């Protein structure tokens, strides 16, 4: 199996498009941070205001949210945490990280994972489909290796690629943040339910990246399935990207119906439980995880079933 994954890895990196994707990822992240610094500098943002003023404004907003009757328990708990942290900062004189600091860029790096989704989807869509379109599938399937092992090696290679891109995203955010902005002052604070504690911004960043990775995993697995079933990478890329954008919109359309609770895109963004932005407020983390696992298994079962059963005529 290791050798098979090695094969897939070799094929992946023999394609120029793979290198271009990595390059683009690094460039876009660095450029984003570079441009941010430049606009802030030319517009004097974040330099005039002192942090107490900013925290005060945020605190007022968060306190007003606590009075919002439409919020669910999860969201209320979230805003409660923010309010407590804000009060603690002002009382104890603990500033947050400046927005123009390496630490804040690392904390934000999870928002760049949509790019990782895009690139991993491209890889996942093509990894089976391309074998069919190139005709190499018959070379691959006439070996003393069962079909499910071949499919598994391909899936693992895609996951590995996704993981690598995620690491690159965090690393590039850190490197560009350090280069353009430098290490800033501040302290990350967390609300553990009963008190405000000092916490490492690294562990918070990793948690958010980890939660966002679930979405990368789901969309990638979906693209892998479409590529395997229809043997067309363009269809798989197109459909996955379309779903990625349209899927979340549909959540709002369905919001009043019970069915929304079983809809993939209601649950795909697990960071919603930590950012308070929940399109369907009355869901729980447990429900989301259950629904996601169910979809995940369905995607994989369909992929394996078609790949190991269908006649190969390419």
């Amino acid at each position: 199996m290791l050798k098979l994954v090695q094969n897939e890895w070799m094929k992946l990196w023999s394609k120029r498009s793979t290198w271009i994707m990595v390059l683009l990822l690094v460039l876009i992240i660095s450029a984003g941070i570079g441009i941010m610094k430049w606009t802030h500098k030319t517009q004097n943002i974040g330099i005039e205001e002192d942090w107490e003023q900013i925290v005060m404004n945020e605190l007022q907003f968060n306190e007003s949210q606590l009075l919002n009757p439409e919020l669910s328990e999860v969201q209320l708990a979230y805003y409660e945490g923010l309010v407590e942290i804000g009060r603690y900062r002002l009382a104890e004189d603990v500033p947050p990280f400046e927005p123009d600091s390496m630490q804040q860029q690392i904390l934000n790096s999870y928002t760049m994972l949509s790019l990782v989704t895009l690139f991993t989807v491209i890889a996942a869509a093509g990894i089976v489909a391309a074998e069919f379109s190139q005709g190499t599938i018959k070379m691959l399937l006439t070996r003393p290796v069962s079909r499910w092992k071949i499919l598994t090696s391909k899936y693992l290679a895609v996951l590995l690629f996704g993981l690598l891109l995620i690491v690159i995203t965090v690393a590039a955010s850190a490197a560009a943040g350090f280069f353009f902005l430098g290490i800033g002052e501040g302290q990350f604070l967390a609300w553990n339910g009963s008190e405000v504690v000092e916490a490492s911004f690294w562990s918070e960043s990793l948690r958010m990246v980890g939660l966002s990775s679930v979405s990368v995993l789901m969309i990638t697995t979906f693209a892998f399935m479409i590529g395997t079933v229809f043997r067309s990478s363009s269809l798989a890329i197109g459909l996955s990207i379309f779903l990625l954008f349209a899927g979340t919109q549909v959540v709002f359309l369905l919001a009043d119906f019970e069915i929304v609770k079983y809809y993939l895109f209601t649950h795909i963004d697990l960071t919603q439980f930590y950012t308070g932005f929940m399109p369907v407020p009355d869901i729980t983390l447990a429900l989301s995880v259950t629904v996601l696992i169910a979809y995940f298994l369905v995607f994989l079962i369909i992929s394996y079933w078609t790949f190991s059963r269908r006649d190969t005529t390419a």
Partner: protein
Amino acid sequence: MAGEPLVQLKNLSKTIGDKNIIKELDLTLNTGEITGFLGPNGAGKTTTIRMMTGLMRPSAGDVVIGGKSIQADYEEAIAQVGVIVENPEMYKYMTGYKNLLHFSRMHPGVRKERIDEVVRQVGLQNRIQEKVKSYSLGMRQRLGLAQALLHNPKFLILDEPTNGLDPAGIREFRLYLRKIAAENNVAVFVSSHLLSEIELLCDRIAVIQNGELIDIKDMHSLQKSQYLIVAEPAEQAGEVLKGIGFPVEAHEKGWIITTEAEHIPGAAKLLVGAGLSLYTIQPYRTTLEDQFLEMTGGGQIAEARAK
């Protein structure tokens, strides 16, 4: 031991939709023997080969290779097989060497030295580090042959392997196949449209038409010792030859007799003795092409067959 049964196609059938593409094929292939697989376009050669290599599932019947069923013991069965199905498609964005490395990793026990050895055998050593994109069709065929030979298969299946090879390449290829069949006792199954090529290469031919095996012939028995005799007047010559007791067939120019060479001088004497003008006595060979066209009727592709 040469000539032992290695591969058996048993009642092999394939139906796609309502089309019977392959109908109850029974065929045995022996070690050390090269079997040609002939048939007009659309006869079902590639489909048969796809089923023999596990790419397609038979609708009925089975393929047994070295005692292992391709359906029940796929991995053990296919481990003995080297195959080129239609054009050998390779990963064009990788070098020839990396392609071979890739396939070698899928067979247990194929080492780097073996890759080099195979590369030398197919004569690609000067170009193996170039991307396959830059290869000519013939070079790709050679690389295709190399990947099929990597793991020293006992059974080699080749679907139109000489397509794109130059005359020297074809000759080399033929000699090479003959050599591994004879020395390594490999059973070889070659489909081709190049009848002259098959004629030189094969020990045996199997002819398929409309998905049915219509004939299996031994190439050595195919070549009877025959002579064309042209003499005037033709009628009378025929009588004389029949009188001697030779099997005689009419030919547009004269007569064809089936006999051994030592009887020819006698026949000539008798013809001349009977006062006939003798113009020609020459060895006569029917080409495989003539026989093939005779067997299959030649011409258009058969329409898709309903059940």
